[in-house]
């Protein structure tokens, strides 16, 4: 690894960092054995955290940051003046293996600007994955960000080698796409998502390996004027129709070489955070987009409090909830109680009537949950949920939350 390669690595890692996804989870167990290298365990590991609080799990780089396209939110767009660089297939393979052997990463997340043609670019990316798997017996994680404009046969090939494929939708509406990413087409992107989803489902039924960790996408928030409700509706559709594993939200972040078409001020980072929390409620807590949106105003989530609390405050008549009687569904709606705590409550209450002291050992969010609960020895006094200042009392001086 010489100085020139280190220099390129700097440029192409810098250019890739605006992609929020870093998960290395969901892969089927696999090991490289004495001839290959590596293993995947299913859970994925964060090998470091950068001072922005984000997890470093995969070597996240671009094959090149040259690009024919001109998406305004992107630092690599054709019209930007950044320094450009380009890796060869062999260089990416070497870097991946070298860092993997030093236990720095779980694998590779490869993306690319579009050079020559979408097919050419996608084929180079597919070749990286194929070389790692076939020539080096690499059993670590591989995530390929597919280029939706590439020919379908390349997707069919890429899925053979990758653990996860992603196709970034980037903007929630066709209207914004047209304005900000003139060469992209929402229809094309969704068609590829459909193709990938179909193959993944078939392969699972037929017990074959095809992108076994599923597919994901990313939405940029704050670059256009889409409301949180609209963003969440888009996610809801993506989860249902295309079986996506994850939708990542990336608060539009100021980039060097910004285009004049973009908003001057970035959106508050908290917005991204609230969207992740809402997404979680959507997938695991049985909330609908409608319910989540009702917690905020005008289609935007409340930035000051999390969406579950926001919903509870607007639906006070449903509380307090008796922890010794309520069903799982209702317990999940109590602010401060996570799914893990709820399951512990359900199992513990079979043996004893739960008191506040017990709950303190089962959940770490009891302070917040308190006004919404009834326990064997506790009933919120004077209808605490009716107090107008409840919101005030529950909002902690805003603490930065960690992202995934």
């Amino acid at each position, binding site marked *: *690894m*010489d100085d020139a390669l*280190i220099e390129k*690595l700097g440029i192409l*890692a*810098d250019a890739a*960092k605006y992609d929020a996804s870093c998960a290395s989870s969901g892969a089927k167990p696999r*090991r490289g054995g004495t*001839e290959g290298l*590596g293993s995947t365990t299913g859970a994925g*590991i964060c*090998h*470091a*955290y*950068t*001072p*922005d*609080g984000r997890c470093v799990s995969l070597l996240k780089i671009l094959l090149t940051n040259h690009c*024919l396209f*001109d998406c305004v939110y992107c630092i690599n767009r*054709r*019209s930007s*003046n950044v320094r450009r660089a380009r890796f060869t297939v062999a260089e990416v393979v070497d*870097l991946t293996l*070298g*860092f993997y*052997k*030093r*236990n720095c990463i779980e694998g590779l997340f490869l993306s690319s600007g579009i050079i*020559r*043609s*979408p*097919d*050419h670019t996608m084929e180079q990316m597919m070749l990286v994955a194929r070389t790692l798997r076939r020539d080096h017996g690499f059993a670590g994680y591989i995530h390929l960000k597919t280029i939706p404009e590439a020919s379908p*046969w390349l997707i*069919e*090939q890429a899925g*053979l080698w990758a653990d996860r494929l992603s196709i970034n939708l980037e903007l929630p509406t066709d209207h914004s796409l047209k304005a900000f990413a003139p*060469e992209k087409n929402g229809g094309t992107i969704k068609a590829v998502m459909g193709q990938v989803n179909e*193959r993944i489902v*078939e392969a699972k*039924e037929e017990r*074959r390996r095809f992108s076994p960790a599923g597919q994901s996408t990313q939405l940029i928030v704050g670059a256009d004027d889409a409301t949180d409700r609209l963003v969440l509706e888009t996610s809801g559709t993506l989860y249902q129709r295309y079986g996506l594993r994850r939708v990542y939200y990336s608060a539009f*972040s100021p980039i*060097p*070489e*910004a*285009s*004049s078409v*973009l908003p*001057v001020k*970035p959106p508050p980072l908290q917005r991204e955070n609230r969207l992740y929390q809402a997404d979680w409620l959507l997938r695991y807590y049985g909330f609908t987009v409608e319910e989540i949106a009702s917690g905020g105003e005008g289609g935007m989530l409340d930035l000051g409090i999390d969406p579950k609390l926001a919903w509870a405050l607007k639906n006070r008549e449903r509380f307090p909830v008796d922890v010794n009687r309520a069903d799982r569904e209702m317990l999940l709606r109590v602010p401060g109680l996570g799914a893990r705590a709820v399951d512990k409550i359900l*199992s*513990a209450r079979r*043996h*004893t009537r739960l008191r506040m002291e*017990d709950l303190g*050992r089962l959940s770490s969010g009891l302070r917040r949950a308190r006004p919404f609960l009834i326990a064997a020895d506790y009933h919120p006094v004077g209808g605490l949920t009716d107090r107008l200042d409840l919101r005030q009392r529950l909002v902690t001086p805003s603490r930065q939350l*960690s*992202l995934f």
Partner: protein
Amino acid sequence: MHTITLQEGADLDGFRRAVRRLTAARTAPEEVLWSVGAPSLFGDDALASDADAPVFLPQAVGPLIETVVCHGDPERYALLHRLVWRVLNGERALLDQHADPLVHRLERLDKAVRRDIHKMHAFLRFRALPPTAPGPEGGERYVAWFEPDHHIVEAVAPFFVERFESMVWTILTPKGSLHWDRRRLMTGPPAERPDALAHDRVADDRFAEGWLRYYESTFNPARVNPTAMRAEMPRKYWANMPETAAIPAMVRSAPARVQAMLEAEAAIPRRRMPEKAVAAMARQAPESLADLNRLIQRSEPLVPGATQAVLGEGPEGAAIAIVGEQPGDQEDRDGRPFVGPAGQLLTAALEEAGIDRESLYLTNAVKHFKFVQRGKRRIHQSPTAGEVKHYRWWLMTELGFVRPRLVVALGATAALALSGRPVSVLRERGPMAFDGWNGFVTVHPSYLLRLPGDEDRRRAQAEFVADLRRAAALA
């Protein structure tokens, strides 16, 4: 009062032996004093017993004990003994009572050990040492220094062995060491940090140095949030991770970097004409059948088996294209479609129907032979529906170049590929509209080969020839 002394570290064996004897002697936890120090001894002879019978515990208890013994807490053995005692004395479901103080405390110890194990898996860094001698033993060697909180050195070994089985490596810690030589795992005594692994020697290994650059570059200064970072990567681990040396400077320079980005005038877009991009997209599709065939040949089979891709054969512009299932054993060897037994049958039927095989375009829905090896024989396997769809784009693009007036599907696989839905050949044989093509469905000749009775086979063959005649008339 009994005093039991176990070995330093995680003495699971010693604890197990002790618990068996204590249980056999029905000794209550209040009567036992646990201490740690070499060697593992039962200070009290009253406990020496032949009754080393295993103790039967509910499923979840064993794994909990295995983790908790790794904890550094001197009370761990006493707590675990209390757990075992209560479980054996009427509280079998004790571990479900997460609100019980003892269970709660043990869960916290368990969690702390798990976290420590997880962080060691995550934060340990290998550095490459220069090779000492040629050969696998003298090839690249990797060494790491790590300081875990708890006695987890042996607990982490399986992870590293599995992941780095093909490498030679050593892990040194103040609590013990591990060495893997690609075959055996050896454990060793506590170690000290070798000078070679100091952070300022990171440039000895260019990849370790490259990792620093990566770490700095993947950080987004617009989102600086050291609190979140420290919650997941507490300072105590930093000494083991060379990249953390860069953190102070990264944090310090972040506000200025962001300010510079915000203040910089938005760039005036340079050329923004999309023609080049649009042209590139148009240019990428294969421009001829030969182009497409090159692509197919270069690509990985999407079914298991296959020595080579078998491409279509026949003139572009043929009036009829015949699509079979997939190449067979003979086709896979020769690299040509319809040359095996089924192909010969097809040729004979075509002749009988008065159709010139040379005038047709012949191809398969799946371009590779899918088989399993049984001794010397390669047994044909039908492609699954999903596999057929992997090939669909190729088939459709191919037909786009040939532009036949009629596409004949031989058998269910071809009909599925062409129509995109499952087709029952015997019930639906005859004309059928495919995706953009006039089509015709009939049986695959291998079906005729498999019919048992001569009579049945003769009749089916006559029907097949009749189908071919009808298809020719349609074209």
